[in-house]
């Protein structure tokens, strides 16, 4: 194993990629495991990295695949007729409780993260990349192997869905408050 490659990648990208994984799975232990898997895949393939994309988008694309793989493996799968996992259309829902630091967030933020789990996989991925990781539309498109147009459309739909979900939560709370 090439330690110097690890040191460089760690210094430049570790916390960013870890945060991406943690927000995807919402469990610190799982995020640590997935981060390990990302390094294994990256270090094994590093000699084959052709520089067609930036190192950053390459790393994130591997992290994205590792995360999808995690959701695929943990999803309930039936054999054959329904034996496929389309991460773009299905929810990448984490059943985990929020990590400690996220549990201390205000209610609005908690509702936002819960609403994010109700988005489809492609929407959740775009939101985490664009807003939590501050990745550009171009970078997000490269990571997901999409067109920039698709990123923009997906982002727009995700925001609308979050708005609807949050409004639903707020309305329910209001009804509850009024009943009291």
């Amino acid at each position: 194993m090439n330690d110097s490659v690890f040191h460089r990648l760690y210094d430049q990208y570790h916390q960013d990629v870890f945060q991406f994984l943690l927000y995807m799975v919402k469990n610190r232990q799982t995020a640590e495991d997935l981060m390990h898997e990302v390094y294994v895949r990256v270090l094994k393939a590093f000699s084959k990295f052709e520089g067609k994309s930036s190192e950053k988008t390459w790393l994130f694309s591997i992290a994205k695949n590792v995360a999808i793989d995690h959701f695929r493996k943990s999803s309930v799968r039936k054999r054959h007729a329904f034996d496929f996992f389309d991460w773009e259309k299905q929810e990448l829902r984490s059943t985990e409780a929020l990590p400690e630091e996220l549990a201390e967030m205000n209610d609005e933020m908690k509702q936002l993260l819960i609403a994010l789990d109700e988005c489809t996989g492609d929407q959740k991925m775009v939101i985490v990349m664009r807003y939590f990781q501050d990745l550009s539309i171009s970078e997000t498109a490269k990571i997901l192997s999409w067109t920039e147009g698709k990123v923009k459309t997906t982002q727009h739909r995700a925001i609308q869905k979050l708005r609807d979900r949050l409004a639903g939560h707020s309305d329910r709370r209001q009804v509850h408050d009024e009943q009291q």
Partner: protein
Amino acid sequence: MSNNKWSEQEIEQLLGQVPKVQDTRSKDEVLKRLHEDSRLNGIQTKKRKSWVPAAVAIASVLTLSLLTATMLNQSNDESAQMADSAAEESVSITGNEALEEQSMTMMESELTADTAPASKKSEETYTALDSSAEVHNTALYPNEISDDVTVFKLGLAGDAANSVPVTFLIPKSMIKSEIGEETPSSLELYESYASRIDEEAFGFFEYHPYKGTFSAEGATLRHTLPNNHGYDMASGTITVYFQTLLDTFQDFSQIEFLNEDGTTMEFDQQGEPSKPLEVNGAIQHNNYFLYKQSDGSEYLAPNFGQTYPSLSEALLQMKRKSNDIYTSLIPREVNYEVEKEGQLTKIIFTEPLDLEQFDAIVAMHMIEGMLLTGASFGETLQMENVVQKEWNGFDFTQPLPVPVGANELTLLLK
């Protein structure tokens, strides 16, 4: 609170305020865990960097001469093809023995236990440690194909400059909504799904879709390639290219290779205008071995597409250690004879074969490897002298089912 409470701008603002979270582990802690991972330990790294390319280079030189000669000769008549194939086979075995001697010791010591199998079935079967446990088959069989699914076969590019045939089942409802056809051709399936299949998630190179464009005319598939296609860059690359095509487009009778100006392609590795690649459906006259990707996931695959003149020869050769990339699926202590009886080919085990004495996965791999080899000749097998009458879905009192495809995988779209 009404819907107006949340404007899109406010949502975006809130999203931008999500707290930053950090990995609280130290760098050393992260590194220590990586050092302990057998997939990255010294021997493994050495294998990837030194002997695999060397082995692939040697293997691809040997198999390229095999493959290209076989493929180019396939337009000749059947008997000539068989004779060629037999001659090539002896060359290949000699070559592979040399390779085997060079680096035989590396195989067993370096391939590590699977920690991240790509195949769903592998994940399930890996928990089975004894033969009494239920294990799932890895291939796809006719009785597993319901009316509402379509079979999609694809050759994936493995770590060792090889093609690994895999099989997906796609719901017809999905195909109908996306392609509009109830019974699409392999080309239509390829063009709709190959670019979306997450090869990397399965541990393979992102090889598909092919460069250039495809067109079909009757049973002929034409691949028009751009100047810089790179498929003939090296003997290994053209082997992967031809073999993945054979593993993918099995409903065409031949594949022609064209330049963008419509002239016949001349591949660098061949030095003459290419002849059409003959496709004989799933009948490829291969036998099957165990192939391990560097991430530990296991597949049953032909040995770089090596062909055999007869099924009995192919079955008997399965016992040979082929090279450092493919290992035999037949446990050392298992011996058998092959007899042709009418339409049936019988595998008669020399000693009573007690499947319970083997690891269930090893036993399953052996049975399925033989069945896939039979399928590669379009023939049905029956096994005799097996202690168990039935085992994990196989009824040994009857002819066994002919697999439809190897290595069934979950359709994982990007």
